[in-house]
């Protein structure tokens, strides 16, 4: 068995709930986030943004701004003279600073650096931009029509059928069997169309960075990001810098949820710094965050499912049309892959279309593509259950994928935990708790892949025997605690002997972004292996000291031991003792591991929610919420629960109130937390997390990613609860009071 395969064991530290190492810094205000640092001689940056949804930039006159006292640099796209050859990078550059056209309300067109925030903003007012306003389109279905305004011609992939607008950039198809034949075997077939609104990740910390770039091409960047290596590589590629000359340090990060896996202001800040010859701090306002960054795709979806009276699904199809925003996107195929992933289906076909519109480029948001994929599928299954008088959990169990199931997206599943979550839901008291008037209970399942990717970890055994662990992934929800726990577990030392830090890009090799629920899995794997590497070295040192063969040394309980009576009789050498004589036995001791951690385990969840609908106002109240999810192995259960609860809360927002609202003019109407309505404390009940542990065979401790799956089921679970409470099927998100009331009245 390879060493990265799961081996059952009794844990001493993994699975406990120690205090997080960054806790004191974060409760005292000492933790340093993106906007919390300064540099000597620092300037303040600010970005001018297009007020138009779609406009040709005829001219930009920066002379008045440049002449202002305190203004040290003004840049436009013309300053970005390096032309990246990769079309993906060209899009990123154009998104960071508009070239020929402003493609959406909020698109950056110029930027300044000045000696104060106020001067910087005054200078923006002095920049004169002449626009030629073009026809725009902000709706995904409208944008697919042949006569729709085209955002950018020539971007269509070879897989798009003829007859669609050039805004449709790609199509992907998944599935197997013959759905039509399947429908003919069904006792009931339901076909419905759904829409979901664009939502924003809504991290509370706006994007922020502090950039220094010299004429010699050496630079330093402090930035809040989910991936500082990605920031380095992208910025270097956009500005024509050598990646090794640009050192990027990740700040503490105030939330990301996928929205900080891209760059927006970082190349701009670096360019301003180079031009001004001084450090430049650039911090987005909330308005900029909403208008220019993030949102997830809005969607328009058709789903058709056939079911027998006994609950067997005989055929299923789904068509997903996802709004990519101002540049070609890449998540519709994820919807097409995820929608039916929880089920064991003989006949299934899905199709995903990626569509450009005059909106900010859609960014990754927690299990990108999966929530809007699950929502219509789980809604139609629920309606079939209602009409065929079937139990929704039993029906899902009947069709649930298991080990050996050929998934709807192709591969055959290894051991998975979906059935375990459904059974846990069935036996939970929530399932049988009584409901009152105007109340309804909804359930839904969700799936997410989870990823691995490039990962580097270094583990240093210090002269006093304590351990310093360096990893390269920003800690977004407690991962330093988890890494310290896994290192301590493997080394057999107390947790307080290990401190984990996030290294800058010059201190470790390439690390993939903190995304895809990869960190606890992949960085954990590398941590365990770096610890094993250090253990091998320490065993050699002990063997050398004892004058025996390293093979004859065992490691457990934080010490080297002779492997058996034949190895010789020596008292154990602790890590402290080995570290103390490291200089005498060959020098400093450090383990490290570099890997592309492939083979992450998929994960499933089942959510259960009770809602009450006010029949007079359409207001929806969430009364009770329970999450059942497979974590593989919960390294720090508190933070696994936190991921379950946080994902559910974001899903609740998406289901009930959150939406990007565009006006006729193509401008975003609600770029603030006042009218972009994320759930507040008084909106939510306690969210009960139930952790299932079906070990991931591809991780030594059985860990699966947990961060993303939790946002997949809530949209459907709430839609099902609301539909049952209201007695009418809701097919558009958000289920805001006007929509619910209209549905009630249309009965």
């Amino acid at each position, binding site marked *: 068995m390879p060493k990265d395969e799961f081996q059952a064991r009794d844990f001493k530290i993994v699975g406990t709930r120690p205090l997080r190492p960054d806790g004191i810094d974060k409760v005292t205000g000492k933790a340093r986030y993106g906007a919390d640092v300064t540099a000597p001689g620092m300037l303040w940056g600010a970005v001018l943004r297009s007020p138009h949804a779609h406009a040709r930039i005829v001219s930009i006159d920066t002379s008045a701004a440049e002449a202002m006292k305190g203004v040290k640099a003004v840049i436009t796209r013309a300053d970005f003279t390096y032309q990246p050859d990769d079309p993906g990078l060209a899009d990123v550059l154009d998104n960071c600073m508009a070239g020929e056209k402003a493609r959406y309300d909020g698109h950056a067109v110029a930027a300044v650096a000045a000696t104060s925030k106020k001067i910087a903003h005054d200078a923006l007012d002095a920049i004169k931009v002449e626009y030629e306003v073009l026809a725009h389109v902000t709706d995904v279905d409208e944008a697919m029509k042949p006569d729709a305004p085209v955002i950018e011609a020539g971007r269509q992939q070879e897989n798009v059928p003829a007859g669609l607008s050039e805004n449709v950039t790609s199509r992907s*198809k998944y599935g197997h069997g013959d759905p039509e034949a399947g429908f003919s075997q069904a006792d009931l077939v339901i076909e419905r169309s759904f829409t979901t609104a664009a939502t924003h990740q809504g991290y509370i910390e706006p994007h922020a960075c502090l950039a220094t770039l010299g004429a010699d091409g050496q630079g330093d960047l402090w930035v809040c990001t989910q991936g500082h290596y990605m920031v380095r590589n992208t910025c270097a590629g956009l500005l024509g810098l050598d990646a090794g000359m640009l050192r990027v340090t990740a700040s503490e990060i105030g939330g990301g949820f996928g929205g900080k896996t891209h760059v927006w202001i970082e190349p701009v800040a670096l360019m301003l710094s180079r031009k001004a010859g001084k450090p430049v701090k650039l911090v987005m306002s909330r308005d900029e965050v909403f208008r220019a960054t993030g949102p997830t795709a809005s969607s328009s979806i058709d789903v058709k499912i056939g079911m027998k009276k006994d609950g067997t699904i005989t055929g299923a199809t789904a068509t997903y049309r996802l709004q990519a925003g101002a540049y070609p996107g890449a998540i519709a195929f994820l919807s097409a892959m995820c929608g039916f992933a929880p089920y064991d289906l003989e006949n299934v076909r899905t*199709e995903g279309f990626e569509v450009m519109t005059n909106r900010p480029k859609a960014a*990754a948001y927690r299990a*990108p593509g999966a929530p809007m994929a699950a929502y219509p599928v789980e809604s139609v299954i629920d309606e079939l259950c209602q009409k065929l008088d079937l139990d929704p959990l039993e029906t899902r169990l009947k069709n649930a994928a298991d080990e050996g199931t050929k998934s709807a997206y192709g*591969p055959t599943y290894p051991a998975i935990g979906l059935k375990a979550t459904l059974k846990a839901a069935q036996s939970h008291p929530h399932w049988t708790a009584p409901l009152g008037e105007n109340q309804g209970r909804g359930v839904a399942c969700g799936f997410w892949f989870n990823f691995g990717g490039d990962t580097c970890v270094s583990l240093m055994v210090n002269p006093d025997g304590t351990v310093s662990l360096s990893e390269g992934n920003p800690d977004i929800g407690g991962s330093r605690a988890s890494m310290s726990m896994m290192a301590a577990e493997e080394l057999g030392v107390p947790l307080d002997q290990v401190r984990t830090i996030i290294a800058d890009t010059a201190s470790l090799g390439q690390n993939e972004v903190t995304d*895809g*629920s990869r960190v606890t899995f992949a960085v954990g794997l590398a941590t365990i292996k770096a610890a094993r590497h250090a253990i091998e070295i320490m065993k050699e040192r002990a063997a050398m000291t004892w004058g025996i063969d390293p093979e004859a040394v065992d490691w457990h309980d934080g010490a080297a031991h002779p492997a058996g009576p034949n190895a010789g009789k020596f008292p154990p050498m602790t890590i402290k003792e080995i570290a103390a004589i490291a200089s005498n036995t060959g020098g400093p001791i450090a383990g490290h591991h570099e890997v592309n951690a492939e*083979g992450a385990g998929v994960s499933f969840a089942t959510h259960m929610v009770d809602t009450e609908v006010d029949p007079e106002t359409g207001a929806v109240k969430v009364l009770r919420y329970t999450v059942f999810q497979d974590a593989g192995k919960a390294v720090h259960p508190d933070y696994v629960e936190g991921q379950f609860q946080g994902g559910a809360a974001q899903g609740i927002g998406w289901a009930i109130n959150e939406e990007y609202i565009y006006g006729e003019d193509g401008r975003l109407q609600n770029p603030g937390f006042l009218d972009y309505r994320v759930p507040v404390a008084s909106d939510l009940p306690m969210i009960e997390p139930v952790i299932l542990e079906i070990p991931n065979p591809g991780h030594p401790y059985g860990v699966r990613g947990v961060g993303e799956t939790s946002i997949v089921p809530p949209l459907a679970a709430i839609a099902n609860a609301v539909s049952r409470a209201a007695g009418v099927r809701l097919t558009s998100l958000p289920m805001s009071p006007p929509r619910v009331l209209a549905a009630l009245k249309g009965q």
Partner: protein
Amino acid sequence: MVAVRLWGSLAELADGQQTVEIEAANLRQLLDGLARDYPALKPQLERGVSVSIDGKIYNDTWATPIEKNSEVVLLNRLVGG
């Protein structure tokens, strides 16, 4: 030869074949073989793919071994949030 399952829209570019056979003992040979034998797949291969081998998903590791009887499924290149 290894049987490689293509996703629907990719199959359309491989003369409608859901499954194609490629002589390959590892991931690199598989991707090279696909591009060689099915040039219409090249644009997508260049944009990136993920490959599921016996239920585990791989993106990059060329040396990943593939057995003759392995289940090999091509997928769009996965991204996360």
